[in-house]
């Protein structure tokens, strides 16, 4: 428990430091940081629409942060979640538009399955390259994000285009029900929450989860006790891809109702941020996702009511991540304690 308290402490300290550095930037452009942060909170929580919008941007982050963490547990640095969200989205859109011969509830499930399968197969490419040929998965997944973006962009402006000015597909025939209208928060939120809880269970209580964690912490040991590190690595990458695909499917069926070009920009990287900040801890990741969602959705309100551009929010989260990755930053107190103990 002590460990958990300490890591929460560290996260909170990091958060304060990031907000303080953000405040410096705001002072630098001659605005009042407290006012800006106040406007940010109002922008995220003031009224039903705003709370709904915050929850709607929370939904995909839940899944993408979980996706990143699952891959990280097996030792993979999967930056490709964003590409997986795009491909999951386009698959869901394709099935949702064209396979209307299926009854609606079945069609909905097929959309999810299709999105998750395609995204998992997409993640299979870097996984195999890494496992068998030691090609850096960071490099490959980042480049594949661009490929996924261009493929989907081509599809919605060419073969799957709705023929309107914006590059987007036709509307899908099934939708996840939205509650709290007029915001776009939808039943996907619950699907995402259940999925995250399920993933926590899988990683902590099943043999597969144990294997994944063993491979992530010590591949040689895993091999020694008869777990194939390559196989587990690939499986967890595919699982990560499937979660990304699910996020894309929810965005298309729940939020937009069609595939909008470039809709997932930042979803993958913010999920990665949320997961990295809490050291890929699946239980903390949802809270961090929520914090990032608040920042994101409050940013617009802040920009409108104060003169602070919303890009400050990205700056703060980036500072946050840089500070959070520094393992030894807030350990000066520990050192003192240890010295005293040894005396």
């Amino acid at each position: 428990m002590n460990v958990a308290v300490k890591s929460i402490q560290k996260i909170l300290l990091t958060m304060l430091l990031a907000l303080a550095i953000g405040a410096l930037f705001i002072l630098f452009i001659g605005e009042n940081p407290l006012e800006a942060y106040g406007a940010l909170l109002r922008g995220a929580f003031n009224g039903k629409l705003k709370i709904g919008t915050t929850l709607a941007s929370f939904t995909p982050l839940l899944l993408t942060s979980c996706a990143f963490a699952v891959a990280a547990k097996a030792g993979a640095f999967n930056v490709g979640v964003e590409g997986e969200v795009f491909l999951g989205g386009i698959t869901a859109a394709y099935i949702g538009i064209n396979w209307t011969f299926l009854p609606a509830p079945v069609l909905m499930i097929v959309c999810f399955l299709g999105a998750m399968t395609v995204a998992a197969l997409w993640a299979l490419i870097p996984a195999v390259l890494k496992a068998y040929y030691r090609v850096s998965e960071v490099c490959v997944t980042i480049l594949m994000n661009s490929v996924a973006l261009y493929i989907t962009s081509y599809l919605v402006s060419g073969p799957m285009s709705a023929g309107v000015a914006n590059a987007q597909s036709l509307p899908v025939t099934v939708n996840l029900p939205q509650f709290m209208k007029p915001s776009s928060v939808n039943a996907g939120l619950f699907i995402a929450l259940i999925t995250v809880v399920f993933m926590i269970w899988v990683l902590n209580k099943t043999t597969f989860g144990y294997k994944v964690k063993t491979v992530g912490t010590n591949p040689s040991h895993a091999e020694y006790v008869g777990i194939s590190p390559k196989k587990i690595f690939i499986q967890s990458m595919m699982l990560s891809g499937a979660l990304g695909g699910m996020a894309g499917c929810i965005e298309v069926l729940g939020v937009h109702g069609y595939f909008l070009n470039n809709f997932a920009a930042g979803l993958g990287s913010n999920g990665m941020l949320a997961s990295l900040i809490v050291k890929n801890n699946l239980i903390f990741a949802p809270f961090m996702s929520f914090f990032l969602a608040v920042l994101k959705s409050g940013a617009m309100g802040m920009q409108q009511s104060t003169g602070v551009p919303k890009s400050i929010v990205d700056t703060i989260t980036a500072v946050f991540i840089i500070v959070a990755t520094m393992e030894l930053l807030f350990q000066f107190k520990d050192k003192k304690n240890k010295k005293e103990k040894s005396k």
Partner: protein
Amino acid sequence: MDLGKIFSVSLIYATFRSATPIIYAALCAAITQQADILNIGTEGIMLTGAFAAVAVSYLTGSWLLGVVVAMIAGLIMAMIMAVGHIRYKAEICAIGMGINLFALAITKFLLNSALGKSGTFSEPGIIAIPRVSLPFLAKVPFLKEIFDNWCITEWFVIVLIILVWFVFYKTVWGLRLRAVGQFPMAAQTAGINVNSMKYRAIAISGLIGGLAGAHLSLGYSKMFTENMTNARGFMGVAAMYFGGAHPILTAAGCLVFGLTDSIGARLQAYGVPSQLVLLMPYVVTIATLAVSMASKMAREKKKKSALAKA
């Protein structure tokens, strides 16, 4: 489709032109790689450099000052990464991605707040890096088309490749750097300060990364756009892997991407959808990377089996 029009003499310069920013980025990644540090932050360092170069060139009217400030900006970003990684034991991939996201955000923020623009910054006041015209080539048919009117930083990249190669393989410093990368314990025993070596490698990498950005925004183009590096930093890292951090092989790898890019640009005139053209360099990068790593592994296996027989 007229193949003669696609594969003409001007393709040679076009290839080199689109490869140059990637070559700079790859050299930036190669230096730290020799010290066994994977410089994922190349992209971010480059983007910061690109912004600093344009902003300073616009505000002061001097491209040289722009380039210098870009290099300093790159250095600062690199040092954040160095301190995080070496002093505070941050995981290099994590802090590298952090640097990239930070660069993306801070350049956007400064573009909005300091320059008052969003998206793109393209003013006539930006002074680009001058191009060199070679009058004595004016009458030589082929060479004129290939070598005339290069940007100064395009000539400089060739100098830099040779310089980096020389430093890596012909100087004591380079030997020490490689020793730190290959076997830090041995290097330490030999009296090399490993951490200081790593700091220096990252610092130089930052300077080159900043220059990469300056070339991208003031030499290759004459503007700044949000996320204008567009994964070129990562292509550089891929090329670095392809060349095994050897500067000359790495640069050769970059030319492959440059070639794809410029062939793609010409194909667009024949009605190939722009998105498919744009994704080609990425696919080629991934494919080359995969093939080169696979063949490297096969070579290593061969070496090992030869050892076992002996």
